[in-house]
């Protein structure tokens, strides 16, 4: 499912055997825990970082700063701008 909310990684488990014990991330939010596969994550998350999840897989890893950046982008957009012009900020 397309989970819009990034979830925090609380543990990285497995990894001893690529086959029988592949590396997975354990994510948690409000006491809910789920095992998430990492095969398609753009980079393996560190504990404390966040992942965006789809159908049980991490599709993107991000730091809290990266998530916050988007929010400040929107805050700036929301201010009444004096000048016309492009959206502030650029994609990473």
């Amino acid at each position: 499912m397309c989970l819009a909310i990034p979830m925090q990684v609380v543990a990285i488990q497995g990894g001893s055997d690529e086959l029988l014990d592949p590396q997975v991330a354990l994510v948690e939010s409000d006491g809910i825990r789920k095992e998430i596969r990492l095969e398609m994550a753009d980079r393996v998350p560190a504990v404390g970082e966040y992942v965006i999840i789809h159908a049980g897989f991490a599709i993107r890893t991000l730091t809290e700063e990266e998530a916050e950046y988007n929010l400040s982008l929107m805050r700036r957009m929301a201010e009444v701008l004096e000048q016309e012009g492009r959206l502030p900020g650029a994609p990473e």
Partner: protein
Amino acid sequence: MKCVDAFRSREITAPLVEEIARVLTRPVRIMEVCGTHTMSIFRHGIRSLLPEGITLLSGPGCPVCVTPAGHIDAFLAAARLPQVTIATFGDLIRVPGSEGSLAEARAQGARVEIVYSPMDALTLARQQPERTVLFAAIGFETTAPTIAATILQAERLGVDNFLIITALKTMPQALEALLADPELRIDGLLCPGHVSAIIGSDAYQPFAERHRLACAVAGFEPADILAGLLGLIRQISEEQPRVDNCYTRAVSAAGNIKAQRLIDTVFEPVDSEWRGLGPIPGSGLALRDAYQRFDAIKRLSLCVPPAHDPKGCRCGEILKGRLLPPQCSLYGTACTPLRPIGPCMVSNEGTCAAYFRYSGHKGRQDGQTTSFR
């Protein structure tokens, strides 16, 4: 993540709504092509906040909606085989083929399991070696890598009772086909969130350039969608179409290379039939030769019959944004959420299902427009 609450707070969304109203200079038609966007817009009541003059159309962004009836028939045929368990995402289970749905097949004794991840289907296959587990592989570029990863894992583990019927599709070719239709007049495209995380925001450059189409990649929270809409309205009023990435926390210009490689390892592009849109070249994914042994069609000698859409069903035109649901003669009478005929009504994300929830609510109430436009 505490900042998540902020993406849903009025403190952020109210100014975005005001700015949209302020910048809008003429009526605009915007299409979104992502089922999750359809759902989020509906769920947060975003249409009721937008000023008059913005028409939001739902395009073919719901994988369930665009899976041809013939594929559903193939799933059903497989479900009737002895020792076969169908594993599927939840939304597919009520989609009607020519003769009933997987839910109906389950009621008649077929083994149909809802899974939340293709890996769950593989686990099922390993737990029940005496059965064949067939995964109904529908989805776009976000789901394709998850299935690819599952296939690779199945291969490594030597699992031979796990199969898929692939009905995977890719977005850019479908967008191209849509935009080539002279009758489709849209000014802007709200680009999918997570498909874009995989394919990258650069994928929409050609549409901005060749079709002079405003494009904005947006996430799924209300603030994300409103930011994307604002970006589009600004581009349109400035007459400067380009691709704005408003979802930088998930989407980069080039996309997720690892995921793209996964898709490329296991799948290759093929021509594909979209329910309601017809055949679109290069818009589907099929298993490469090296992974043919996972193809259920071959292994179980199934066929995907050319299926005809039910008489009177106009889902195709709805998916192309040409028709609004009430203009379909079946809508609300023969075709309702309880007894759906076409996919636009079955899936919660389908245009007709979403519209049905608005029906009866017309005109303005206390300054809020609640009519579907």
